[in-house]
């Protein structure tokens, strides 16, 4: 169909606006990358834009050698990997029975879980529960209270429910029990969805901030989010660095920029591979509500 003049104008404006939106999402990141790779003098004088000025790895070098960022990085990895594994396991353990039509009281259990989405005890009572269980200052306090996200569980449940019923019948005739059905049929058929939900949990654990700040007292157990936040807040104690040559060449901005990049890289590394899955996953979840 031929485009009218009005449509041409519409499409042009549309393309321009979308390009601007996309640029606004990229530029701040490029600015941070440039800052992290620029010489201290250029950073201080405000010369750095989107391209590094007087390229140097110095910020990264001092970040890695002068701060506990590496330790925090591995803490973040530990929190994320174990937490995501646990959350996935228990979410499947919740979603699968609820998706089976013959499961006892499935409606009641679903309602009881949904209720916790719209009404909850809040921070202080939850804190006291965690404290009474003796979980303070251990990663259990990060993993257990957030084990299942009811929202993710509901998405998973409706996905399981919508798998074709005939496969189910056939498997049962072949002598497959409930567990066999779950592991041999349901989970393999749900890979895109499982990847999506694992990504949601993973990002949640990787970015976890408030919980770490509340429950973890031992600074050597901090994850990167809290460590970097502390570095930003405390204006970075330059005295922390033992090597005097470092101090003269350091800028807080450069170090912080480098820390942010270290925190972003793992997300950017997995993001392109998982993007197609989460778009599909969110869409599947949204259609069934």
């Amino acid at each position, binding site marked *: 169909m031929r485009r009218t003049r*009005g*449509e041409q104008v*519409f499409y042009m404006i549309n393309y321009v*606006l979308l390009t601007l*939106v*996309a640029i*606004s*999402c990229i530029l*701040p990141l490029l*600015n941070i990358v440039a800052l992290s790779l620029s010489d201290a003098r250029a950073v*201080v*004088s*405000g010369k750095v*834009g989107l391209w590094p000025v007087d390229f140097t790895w110095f910020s990264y070098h001092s970040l890695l050698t002068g701060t506990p960022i590496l330790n925090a990085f591995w803490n973040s990895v530990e929190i994320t990997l174990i937490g995501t594994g646990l959350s996935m396991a*228990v979410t499947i*353990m919740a979603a*699968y029975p609820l998706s089976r039509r*013959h*499961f*006892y009281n499935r409606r009641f*259990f679903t309602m*009881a879980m949904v209720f*916790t989405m*719209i*009404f*909850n*005890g*809040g*921070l*202080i*009572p*939850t*804190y*006291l*529960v965690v404290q009474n*269980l003796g979980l303070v200052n251990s990663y259990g306090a990060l993993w*257990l209270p957030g*084990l299942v996200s009811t929202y993710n569980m509901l998405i998973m449940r409706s996905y399981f429910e919508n798998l074709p019923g005939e496969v189910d019948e056939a498997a049962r005739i072949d002598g497959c029990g*409930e567990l066999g059905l779950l592991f041999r049929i349901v989970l393999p058929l749900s890979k895109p969805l499982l990847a999506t939900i694992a990504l949601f949990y993973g*990002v949640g654990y*990787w*970015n976890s*901030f*408030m919980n770490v700040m509340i429950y973890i007292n031992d600074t050597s157990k901090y994850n990167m*989010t809290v460590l*970097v*936040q502390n570095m*930003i807040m405390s204006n970075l104690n330059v005295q922390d660095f033992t090597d005097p040559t470092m101090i003269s060449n350091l800028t807080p*901005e450069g170090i*912080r*920029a480098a820390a*942010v990049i270290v*925190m*972003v890289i793992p997300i950017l590394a997995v*993001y392109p591979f998982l993007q197609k899955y*989460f*778009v599909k996953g*969110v*869409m599947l979840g949204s*259609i069934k509500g």
Partner: protein
Amino acid sequence: MKGELTAGKPRLEPPDSEVRQRIRQQRLRRFKTNIPLILMFLPVILFYLTFRYAPIGGLVMAFKDYNFYDGLWHSPWVGLDHFHTLFSDPRTVEIIRNTLFLSLLSIIVGFPIPIILAIMLNEVRNIAFKRTVQTVVYMPHFFSWVIIAMMIMTVFSLENGIVNRWVEAWTGEPYPFMYNKGSWIAVFVGSGIWKDMGFNAIIFLAALTTIDPSQYEAAQMDGASKLRQIWHVTLPGIRSTIILLLILSMGRVMEVGFDQVYMLQNSNVNEVADVISTYIYRTGLQGAQFSLTTAMGLFESLVAFILIFCANYIARRFNEGLW
């Protein structure tokens, strides 16, 4: 088994007992297939009881004077005292007002944007361009607020932020974006929108794919311009999704994300930037005023709960309710 005791009644005929037998077998089979499911589900029940329902029970603390020695059960009751304290203190009233103001503003300004973005993306015919834009605008959703707060402070920094270098070139003076109340609110709302607009657009994009293309053709035949097509075809097509998400967002009116406020706030803007979640963290956890802040939390949850119900009630009158 019960049937056999009522012997003598004509219902007890051989074919009937056969039926009963079958029913019993079916029940037994149902029970057997349920065993693994129940075993699998037990930890889930345990989780919800411990970490979701126990804290709800812990809300009684709001009506007690909690202290460590007596514990939750033996602390003395104080009735609504804590609520009186909260609502008569101008500081906490201000905090409640800030929370409502920031979240309502975020919803009013932020809610239409993902819809507009989804419609714009939906109109793009060039697949490569569409993919690229999508990939980029989804990305900020996956960054933590530490990263985004850092980007904001860098970009808007007084001394050497890019934005202020433009502002300076334009007006001769840098502008303290993060230290003026008005501009702080703008940065706060804007950053929330910026972080999640792409991701929130996904759901609307999904809803848009269900609209029948022939409707657009018909509208075009009738001479509808592009904007009119969007108004009369696209928007009604995703109406139920829009209402659903609006109801859900009503539940979040009382909560302003802790991370976002905590990382963006500074002492210059506390008057507008202190919200319920930061208050509970500071006064409750750091100041150990458990009962008072639990009362605040309960108030927050209740208002959210009521708002969801009201929004759903209204939506139901248009046949679009959640339940």
